[in-house]
């Protein structure tokens, strides 16, 4: 009876169950002499082992995560990105500096996906990298791995960024009136940042300067009497952070927005506020911001429409028209053909 013992064919007696004959390892001389060995690259061993460069890359990613003190889940995501990215043809050829950036970009992507507010600026300073170079590698990584990476979360960024401000505890070099409660500052800064987003100050801009300017305004408004005289630069120095170059511009824009909104509140309109004094009423403005925003934008829209109408009326009817002026409105033959073709697509 044929009966197999694991993978070895055996013939077993039906009556007593003794093994009568065993399968041989090979059956013919041909098998023993002419078959080829199984190459390591074709066995499963090759696939299960990681190449050394991938291992190094993964270790770099893990080190970065430890330095940034990221939670375990983030580290795992970053490592999985690195494991996918590093063996790829597009990245295997990268020089060492770019491979470092690649590791950083995996960490960045992972942070974004988990809502951890790591900024590119932080990453650049960590890796001593040029922002342009980082941008290129990051874009390449996203394209190659087809990563869906959400945008940097401003709310999280506010909380993290304010963590590094020194104004929430007494210290020798900080004047007493400057110290503020962290919770209140964070809450109000969040509101100001949200306001900035609603009023188009955030789209297309670097996020950190907005947060800095918002924090400054929030901090000022919590104790205006003592803090109105303080400048943004002084505030940042006291807080122990650098002044991002665009921050003064963002501050000015925020002031303008606040002034426009304050003009909609009857009891503030009579006060004739300027950019210094409007901060005192930030609380009021924030409280009524939904209503004020709607009012402020509506009047703005109307203004724009009026402007358009005015322009049309000003053009005189019988002004002399030169040939060259007409010609600028006429389509050349080539252009007309091309545009006709484009119209056909419609």
């Amino acid at each position, binding site marked *: 009876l044929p009966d197999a013992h694991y993978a070895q064919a055996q013939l077993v007696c039906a009556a007593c169950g003794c093994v009568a004959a065993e399968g041989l390892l090979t059956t013919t001389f041909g098998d023993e002499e002419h078959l080829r060995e199984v190459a390591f690259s074709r066995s499963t061993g090759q696939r299960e082992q990681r190449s050394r460069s991938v291992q190094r890359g993964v270790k770099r990613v893990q080190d970065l995560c430890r330095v940034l003190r990221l939670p375990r889940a983030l580290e795992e995501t970053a490592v999985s990105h690195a494991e996918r990215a590093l063996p790829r043809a597009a990245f295997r050829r990268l020089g060492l500096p770019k491979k470092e950036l690649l590791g950083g970009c995996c960490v960045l992507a992972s942070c974004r996906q988990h809502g951890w507010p790591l900024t590119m600026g932080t990453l650049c300073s960590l890796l001593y990298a040029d922002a342009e170079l980082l941008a290129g590698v990051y874009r390449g990584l996203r394209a190659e791995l087809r990563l869906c990476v959400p945008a*940097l979360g401003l709310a999280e960024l506010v909380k993290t960024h304010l963590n590094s401000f020194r104004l929430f505890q007494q210290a020798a070099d900080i004047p007493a009136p400057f110290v503020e409660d962290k919770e209140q500052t964070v809450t109000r800064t969040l509101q100001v940042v949200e306001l900035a987003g609603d009023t188009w100050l955030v789209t297309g801009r670097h996020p950190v300067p907005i947060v800095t300017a918002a924090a400054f305004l929030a901090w000022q408004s919590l104790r205006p009497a003592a803090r109105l005289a303080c400048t943004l630069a002084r505030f940042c120095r006291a807080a122990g952070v650098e002044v991002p170059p665009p921050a003064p511009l963002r501050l000015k824009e925020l002031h303008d927005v606040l002034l426009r909104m304050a003009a909609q509140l009857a009891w503030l309109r009579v006060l004739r506020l300027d950019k210094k004094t409007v901060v005192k009423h930030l609380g009021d403005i924030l409280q009524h911001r939904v209503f004020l925003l709607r009012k402020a934008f509506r009047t703005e829209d109307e203004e724009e429409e009026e402007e358009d109408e005015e322009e049309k009326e000003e053009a005189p009817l019988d002004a002399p028209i030169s040939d060259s002026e007409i010609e600028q409105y006429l389509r050349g033959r080539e252009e007309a053909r091309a545009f006709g*073709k484009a119209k056909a697509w419609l």
Partner: protein
Amino acid sequence: MDGVSPLEQYLERCNGQDDISTSPQLFAPMSPYDVDLPIQTTPDAPFASQFNQPKELPPDFSSVDLSFLPDISQDDQDQNPCEGAQDTQKELDGSVSRNEDSGVFLEESGLSEADTTQPCSETSGVCPPLTPMTPVTPVTPASESSGIVPQLQNIVSTVNLACKLDLKNIALHARNAEYNPKRFAAVIMRIREPRTTALIFSSGKMVCTGAKSEEQSRLAARKYARVVQKLGFPAKFLDFKIQNMVGSCDVRFPIRLEGLVLTHQQFSSYEPELFPGLIYRMVKPRIVLLIFVSGKVVLTGAKERSEIYEAFENIYPILKGFKKSS
């Protein structure tokens, strides 16, 4: 390639042609040579056929039976299984007629090839099976046009003068030429009318940039060739080709880039930490758009003017959906 959707295959082919490391050049303000100069050959074949076919078809569309356009998903369900997704793709682009038209052309090409499964993957710009999508802007009626015409800002063209040139000699005898062999191995020549710049290489190849129209670019290139001729070289004027066209326009309303990147993830890249604009890589036509919060739009990567117009007509309804509403 198992398990990779046709859209991903298509995009992979697109991406394979782009050199990722050169994409930052998009933001370099005055680089004389904009996007890719070398003529792309075979990978473009599926695209090229899509672009060329409309030209070869009779411009008189009465001969084309358009009556089946609304029923396209039902008529061809058995032939073209991914046509069903064409509806969602139409929503995605927000421009119904464009996709339908391209569907017409590509369908015809597909039928003529008698290979009905092929067009599906080649036209994946038209009928991709979509990955999970966030809500998409509503479809606008086909007849609505934006009324805004993008203005051409820059044309990059190349021509072959077909003779070896002595660059030092040229730099010596031409007033409008500069030549710094240590910095760059070409003569930089400028003319005032049309106001353009040319890079002239010792091989006889020339790049002409800065013109605002195709005719101007050709005229300028001819003027440069004349200059080279007058300097004593037997210059010809071979293989003049427009390599890239850049256009810009203004939609006149602010745009919520954060929203746009959410709903058009596959095509958009918006990283305010890196660049203030949103980079939209349109698949059909293959144009890159830089969209800014102010409403200004820059379109680049076109070989023909119609591609710029078409790309803008495609994006306009999408942008309208993200007009400010606070």
